[in-house]
Structure formats: structure tokens, C-alpha cells
């Protein structure tokens, strides 16, 4: 199945399952991923798929807190969990930061980068999810799991 362009999906077809705003503090991320995990469990999402979504969301939340908000708890990160009529899940994470260009990130599997201590988050998200879009100049990520 070829994915539809994200922007072409009518927003009215999406059901809001969870919407959380939280201060940009890494210690707050666990509660958000726990809440998402609970909703996914209620939806009977299989464990493997649930783990993949949870890890991708955790990476996106860390990026939003650390890079989007410079870990300033006076700033807020928003996380939304939605589903479409086919039961596909989309998670949207947004921050008030300046955004970034994900195409400029280094390949973490390049031999020069394999032993790096960082730089794998966005790559992991792309591997774990079925469709990933950056919007609003890079400070909003929309991640789909079919």
C-alpha cells in the first residue's frame, strides 16, 4: 500500500485519542509515554507495534524537549495521539522552537558515526514508524503507524 501524502488526509477523519501539553523537562516524558502506552493497550495494539510507537514517540519527545525547548521547563511541548477510520495511529509532537531541517542530519550508520554518542533519534523514528513528516519548519513531527 502506498502511503497517502499526510497533508491530503482530512483532519476531520482523525479521532483524537489523547492530547497532552507538558513542560519541557525530560523527567516529564515518562508520564507522557506511559499515557500513550495505556491508550494503545486499550486499543489492543499488538505489543511489537506498541513498543515501536512508544520508542519513536520517546525519541520525538526528547528531541522536542532538548533541542526544541533547550530543556527550559517554562516552555511547553504538545503531544497528540490520533487514529483514522482504518485504525492507523498518528502521533504529533510539536514544540515552540526554531525547527530544523531533518535532511541535514548525518547518517548514524556511516562508519564515521557508528561510535558517536548521539545522532540516532530521528533515524530510529524513521525506521520504527511507517510514515514520518516534519511540518512547520521542523518543529512539528507527524508519525504514522499502520
Amino acid at each position, binding site marked *: 500500500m502506498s502511503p497517502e501524502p499526510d497533508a491530503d488526509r482530512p483532519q476531520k477523519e482523525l479521532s483524537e485519542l489523547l492530547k497532552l501539553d507538558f513542560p519541557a523537562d525530560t523527567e516529564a516524558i*515518562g508520564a507522557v509515554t506511559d499515557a500513550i502506552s495505556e491508550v494503545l493497550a486499550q486499543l489492543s495494539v499488538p505489543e*511489537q507495534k506498541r513498543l515501536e510507537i512508544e520508542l519513536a514517540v520517546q525519541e520525538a519527545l526528547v528531541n522536542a524537549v532538548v533541542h526544541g525547548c533547550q530543556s527550559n521547563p517554562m516552555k511547553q511541548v504538545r503531544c497528540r495521539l490520533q487514529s483514522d477510520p482504518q485504525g492507523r495511529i498518528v502521533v504529533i509532537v510539536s514544540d515552540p522552537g526554531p525547527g530544523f531541517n531533518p535532511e541535514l542530519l548525518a547518517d548514524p550508520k556511516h562508519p564515521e558515526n557508528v*561510535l558517536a554518542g548521539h545522532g540516532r533519534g530521528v533515524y530510529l523514528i524513521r525506521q520504527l514508524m511507517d510514515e514520518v513528516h516534519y511540518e512547520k519548519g521542523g518543529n512539528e513531527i507527524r508519525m504514522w503507524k499502520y
Partner: protein
Amino acid sequence: MGSAVDGLRQTIQEAVDGGDTRIVINLSEVPMIDSSGIGLLVRCLASTKQRGGNVKLVQPSKFAVQTLRLVGVLSLFEIFENDDAAVESFA
């Protein structure tokens, strides 16, 4: 992520600074490893190998193994079923 990774980083750094470069990390109670955890493991591996040591992993979850493979670092590590086997491998 966060304080958990920071705590482990400090523990490992203290061990390496104290001359312990043969390190066994038991992951049996870790359901998933995020990018910060992966970064810590590979830096620890590089640091110990520079000093003639190594890092051995024990009982990573199936999902943790999949994640390490996804980012291309699984082959860097030796994996063991239990702590004793990992420790004996240094002999």
C-alpha cells in the same frame, strides 16, 4: 533516557576511571533502549576498548536487540545469556 542514562553513565565512568575496563551490563530488566542509551553503550565500548577492555551485554530484550540492529551497532557487542558466561568470556 534522562536520569537513568545519566546514572549509568556516571557508574560506568567511575568504573573505567578506577581501572575497570572489562564491563558486563545486564539488560534483562530493560524493555527498550532509546538513542541516548545506545549512545551510552557505544561510547562505553569505545572507551573500554581504547584501554584494552570490552563491554559485554547480558539478556537484552528481543526489542532491544532489534533496536541495536536497526541503528547498525548490534555487531559491535558480544551478547550472553547470563552474567557468569559474560564474565568468563573475559578470562
